[in-house]
């Protein structure tokens, strides 16, 4: 194909968008609606993913050191904890530090601690590499000599992981169902719009246009409709999400991913999906009318 022909197809594709105004509107709307819902699903799942990472990162084992362990052997104990299989990190919190933290938490009631000396033990904060292994790691930590007791929210961990997994699976199924429905909706819309142009296609063929030549502008048109159909929900989602982030203050472990992070990723996916849907829809439909 000559470059001037590609230029011609591009020009015609653009012109067709306007010449077939209502059909463009219908097709772009179908793509937009589908991608808007897909975009919401993507933003939700990105944030759920983020939430689960947040929570998993906060899953920690508090290992309390027996008072009998002398200060100078604490580094040795830290090393042996670090050496346990499945341990990601070990952080030492001295009893003095723990007391300070507690005073801060108690705020005006910190006076209660006066005269008690320091009742708190030295502590190691241990994190498992795999959050799902927190429980078994905790058992190993507890079995280490010098560790008096361990604490970890095992009930919470188990329930939370179960919920996260279920939400994730549901989101995936939801997205797949939406995509299938969207593709169906779009292909029908485009079929209807192209049906009205079958006469034009027939004329083009009678004048000696090859199938490829007829498809050219449809290809361009489909691409443009896909991009348009992605940019519209992209813009809406951008505004909505920014508004949400600015007006709702989440409490830990909930937090919003930044608008730019979320919209960059979502928009990329939407444009890819939109272009795919647009091209695919146009070409599949035009093929039916090329047999003249």
């Amino acid at each position, binding site marked *: 194909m000559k470059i001037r022909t590609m230029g011609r197809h591009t020009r015609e594709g653009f012109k067709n968008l306007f010449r*077939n105004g209502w059909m463009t509107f219908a097709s772009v709307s179908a793509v937009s609606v589908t991608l808007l819902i897909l975009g919401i699903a993507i933003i939700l799942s990105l944030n759920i993913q983020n939430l689960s990472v947040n929570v998993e990162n906060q899953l920690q084992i508090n290992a309390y050191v027996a008072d009998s362990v002398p200060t100078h052997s604490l580094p040795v104990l830290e090393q042996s904890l670090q050496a346990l299989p499945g341990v990601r990190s070990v952080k030492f919190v001295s009893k003095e530090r723990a007391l300070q933290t507690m005073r801060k938490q108690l705020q005006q009631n910190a006076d209660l601690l006066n005269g008690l000396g320091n009742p708190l033990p030295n502590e190691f904060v241990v994190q498992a590499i795999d959050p799902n292994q927190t429980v078994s790691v905790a058992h190993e930590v507890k079995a280490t000599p010098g560790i008096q007791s361990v604490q970890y929210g095992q009930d919470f961990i188990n329930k939370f992981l179960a919920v996260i997994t279920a939400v994730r699976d549901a989101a995936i199924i939801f997205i797949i169902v939406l995509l299938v429905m969207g593709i169906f909706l779009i292909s029908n819309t485009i079929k209807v719009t192209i049906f009205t142009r079958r006469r*034009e296609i027939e*004329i083009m063929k*009678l*004048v*000696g246009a*090859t199938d490829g*030549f007829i498809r050219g502008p449809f290809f361009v048109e489909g691409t443009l409709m896909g991009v348009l159909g992605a940019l519209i929900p992209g813009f809406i989602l951008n505004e909505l999400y920014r508004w949400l982030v600015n007006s709702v203050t989440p409490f830990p472990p909930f937090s919003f991913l930044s608008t730019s992070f979320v919209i960059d990723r979502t928009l990329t996916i939407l444009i890819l999906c939109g272009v795919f849907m647009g091209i695919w829809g146009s070409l599949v439909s035009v093929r039916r009318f090329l047999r003249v």
Partner: protein
Amino acid sequence: MIEMQDVWKEYGNGVAALSGISVQIKQGNFVFVVGPSGAGKSTFIKLMYREERPTKGHIFVGGFNIEKLRERQIPIMRRHIGAVFQDYKLLPKLTVAENIAFALEVIEASRRMINRRVAEVLELVGLSDKGKMFPRELSGGEQQRIGVARALVNKPSVIIADEPTGNLDPENSWAILKLFERVNDQGTTIVMATHNRELVNACKKRVIAIENGQIVRDQERGEYGYED
């Protein structure tokens, strides 16, 4: 130029539209194809640019063996034939000039060549001032002249026209016929199916009459010969 050898055409419902047609049309001929409605004229015409395929027999048009044509060669073949239709078959969303240019764009002609040729044929059909208008803004006669201009723009060696004056008043019908005579004078073969008795009788050209799918008459300087 155009040759049919024992051509048969049956449609899916078993109706035989053509039964054993053989005919030769030489380069530069001007041929009217006449006959009652449903006699097979349209099928005869459609076979020539491969809108229909023969059930049996051989068809040669300008060096192309029609029944052996591959799918991808059909467009190439059609570019050597100028086709004119009763319903004009103009693209409604393209301007007059763009409609004509389309036939050149498919052969990937340069913009300069397209502009030049479009202007030439618009002048030939006397519609130089209508290039920027859309088909719906033109009268039927003007639309058909655009149809002829489009058929001519590729300088085809043959023009095939199926009832080109079927929707036109006598005045416009004559205008179309005069156009055909002018391009025929320059050596282009014209095959025109028609119901227009006045045109046929006035022109004294070769007349091929088809009835019941067979050629019943083929005479030089013929007459229309029907009462309808």
